[in-house]
């Protein structure tokens, strides 16, 4: 492959595409960009046929690789460093810096005698975060952008072999990669002596082991080596001793998909977006009580309010915003006071949360924060690999206490124990899963302490979520007797004549909540105390 040939394909296919006309490619949940969005990573998704390398080339594909190969690896690293690109997999480590570390580690050791690769690049497409699917969108919709990013990264750090580790639950992504890799090889964009520059590079696919923790880079390396994926302590960092003990750079899909654009448009262009320390764009997967859910890509520094109200269209049913959970199960819940904080890596951490991979769940007044904490803890304790006691035993104890709290069995001592546990688990756990597992608890306890206290002291769930910890009452003054609740009640325990205030027969109410949802006039209130039939059986 030469630049001329690449150019020829670009021109040809662009003509062909023009002839074909506007024809969006189907791409799952990805909707057309909304005002406020800036698409860098997602720019080709839904725009090109991901199974045709020519269409990627038509949109400047592999020109960045050609450009990179005309630079020295050091120059590539400098370019990416000055762009300010940070890892999108969660921790936000500067990508260029990581390659530099690997490159230095590689230089410091003798070349392997057995002819095995001296260093590796791994693209992390495990995306185990429930609710996050940005990596999938890119892998399915624009696999070549990831491959090109990988080739550039590998050139910069000094790797000749790489693996792309894809979650087992992403068969389409795997399929598209299985199509894309041979296509790139066919055109000489992977393989030996790429662009005649003496650079050899190839990619193999590895299918994930199906555990959240396998997305953690050291566990992922174990998993590729064929062992049970469990995090190892760092140092040594993978950049120094990673896959098969060789210098290894692990980079996230989204991180790598940014790289060709940076090379093409320049570091300054990229650094022109975002905040002081967080440059470029970030994808978010918005879910929960918001009108427009789905995948978005926005510049760093945007506020939660802009995301939720401008792009997301506001809270569902125009209810009250309560909190935004960012960063997935290891992130935290941010209350309304953070709505106007510009979002970047630092500000989220300062607020007790994380950027994570970009999960964003919007919660409203009917979400119980204790239950939200319990929900995430249920996930993490189940996903804990079991290697270190603070996490494997600690998250279990946290879950047990949170479960008690949501079953009206909590005590004040439990509150102290929760604090004791969270403080120490984050301090003593081996990996970021254990360390971060406490964030949902810590942030909800910090920002919604009164909800915890209501659960413990009054055995009351003010949001009306925890069974047996509240009942409904129809407010006579507000009720206009429309009868919607009466019609919905499955046990027929609501009485009242038309146009007259209704009343719930508490002795027989099972607190299913159908009436509450049915009332259009906010005439049903949540009150402390269970009804006889809503009490939970003892465990």
């Amino acid at each position, binding site marked *: 492959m030469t630049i001329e040939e690449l150019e020829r394909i670009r021109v040809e296919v662009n003509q062909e595409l023009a002839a074909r006309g506007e024809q969006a490619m189907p791409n799952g949940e990805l909707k057309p960009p909304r005002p406020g969005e800036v698409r860098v990573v997602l720019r080709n998704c839904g725009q090109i046929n991901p199974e045709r390398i020519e269409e990627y080339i038509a949109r400047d594909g592999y020109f960045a690789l050609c450009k990179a190969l005309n630079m020295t690896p050091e120059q590539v690293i400098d370019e990416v460093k000055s762009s300010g690109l940070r890892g999108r997999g969660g921790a936000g480590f500067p990508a260029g810096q990581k390659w530099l570390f690997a490159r230095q580690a590689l230089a410091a050791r003798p070349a392997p005698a057995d002819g095995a690769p001296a260093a590796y690049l791994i693209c992390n497409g495990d995306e185990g975060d429930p609710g996050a699917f940005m990596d999938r969108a890119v892998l399915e919709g624009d696999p070549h952008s990831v491959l090109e990013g990988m080739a550039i990264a590998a050139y910069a750090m000094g790797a000749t072999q790489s693996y792309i580790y894809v979650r087992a639950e992403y068969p389409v992504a795997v399929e598209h990669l299985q199509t894309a890799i041979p296509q790139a090889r066919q055109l000489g964009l992977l393989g030996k002596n790429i662009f005649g520059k003496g650079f050899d590079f190839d990619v193999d696919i590895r299918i994930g082991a199906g555990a959240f923790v396998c997305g953690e880079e050291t566990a992922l390396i174990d998993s590729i080596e064929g062992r*049970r994926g469990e995090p190892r302590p760092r140092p040594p960092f993978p950049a120094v001793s990673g896959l098969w003990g060789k210098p290894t750079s692990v980079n996230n899909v989204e991180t790598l998909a940014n790289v060709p654009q940076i090379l093409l448009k320049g570091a300054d262009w990229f650094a022109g977006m975002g905040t002081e320390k967080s440059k470029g764009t970030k994808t978010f997967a918005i879910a929960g009580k918001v009108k427009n859910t789905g995948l978005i890509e926005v510049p760093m520094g945007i506020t939660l309010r802009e995301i939720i109200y401008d792009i997301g269209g506001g809270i569902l049913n125009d209810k009250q915003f309560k909190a935004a959970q960012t960063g997935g199960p290891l992130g935290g819940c941010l209350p309304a006071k953070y709505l106007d904080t510009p979002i970047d890596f630092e500000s989220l951490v300062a607020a007790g949360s994380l950027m994570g991979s970009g999960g964003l769940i919007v919660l409203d007044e009917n979400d119980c924060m204790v239950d939200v904490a319990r929900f995430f803890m249920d996930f993490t304790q189940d*996903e*804990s690999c*079991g290697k*270190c006691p603070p996490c*494997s*035993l600690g998250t279990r104890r946290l879950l*047990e206490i949170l479960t008690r709290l949501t079953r009206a069995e909590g005590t004040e001592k439990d509150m102290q124990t929760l604090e*004791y546990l969270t403080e120490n688990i984050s301090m*003593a756990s081996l990996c970021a899963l254990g360390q971060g597992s406490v964030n949902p608890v810590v942030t909800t306890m910090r920002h919604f302490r009164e909800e915890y206290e209501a659960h413990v002291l009054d055995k009351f769930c003010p949001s009306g979520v925890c069974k047996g910890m509240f009942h409904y009452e129809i407010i006579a003054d507000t009720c206009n007797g429309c009868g919607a609740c009466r019609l919905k009640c499955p046990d027929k325990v609501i009485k009242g004549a038309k146009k007259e205030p209704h009343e719930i027969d508490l002795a027989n109410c099972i607190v299913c909540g159908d009436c509450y949802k049915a009332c259009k006039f906010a005439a049903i209130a949540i009150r402390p105390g269970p009804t006889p039939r809503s009490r939970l059986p003892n465990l």
Partner: protein
Amino acid sequence: MMTLTINGKRTEASGGAILDVAKANGIRIPTLCHHPALAPQGACRLCLVEVKGMRALQPACTFPVTEGMEVQTDSPKVRAARKFVLELLLSDHPQDCMTCEMCGNCALQDLIYEYGVKETPFAGDRHLYPLDDRDPFILRDMEKCIRCRRCIRACDEIQAVNAITMINRGFRSKVAAAFDTRLQDSNCVFCGQCISVCPTGALTEKDSHGLGRAWQIEKVTTICPYCGVGCTLDLNLRDGRVIKATSNWNDSVNRGVLCVKGRFGWQFLHNPDRLTRPLMRSSLWREISGTEGTPAKYDGFVETDWETALDTVADKLSAARTAYGPDAVGILASAKCTNEENYLVQKLARREIGTNNVDHCARL
């Protein structure tokens, strides 16, 4: 050489993990998952220390020292974290020290004692596993397992067998053979390496249960009586009887590693079948003494005393030699006996009988 500070004291080191440098400076850092014969893995979090500039505490067993590093190994923060880990471990432990085989030799018990963890603040689920006594030699009490994985690593790194692994995740994770079968049904070779590194009562020598606690045992270092590798092992004695054989990590041949015969093959020593008195063929006894004698437990033999036995052997050998010449006598020495015994036997043959008819099963 680099300079670092441990607990305010400046010291020099050429590299290595904090744990080793501290040890070289006389500072003990508690450990559970660490074992000198195994690669460190930083799992148990008992060796956590404060490293200046790091938010989270770091495991001393894996964290390498660097120039200018400042480490606190016993600060209140560090002690609190260790105590926390111990409280967690205790919350999932049967607390059976009274009858536990490892009492007095248990790393967990020692640390619980040192950190004064009288009770755990965490009430919650505890693993309940039946005692696994399906296999010979190795008793597995997984309720006492702290999941330090030393056993798994020994089976992998030392023995290269990989009979056992972790199954399940998180709280439910458990050390087991694949599909949780008996060890006999796995590729386990019953070397007992896993027992030798287990810090708790989770893996113990089945045949030694109830026979003696660590402080009641005297150890004598000797050599395995089986194959030609010549492994060093420690015989554990109580009341003058062998009750167990254990690894001796200091020797230079096997470095603490034993095979099934060396570690578990000692029971024959105290077998009631052992010969305890000289015996003589009844017909021979009759010929010598003219009496019937005391029948031995083997047909056709009577018990005799040492004087008679030795005299008879000497007389008979000498008679054969006199009658038929020295080469009518043959002596078999033994590849099982000591050098000293073998030296004497060939000397007996050559010097007293006058024959070179001395050999042994050298070729087996």
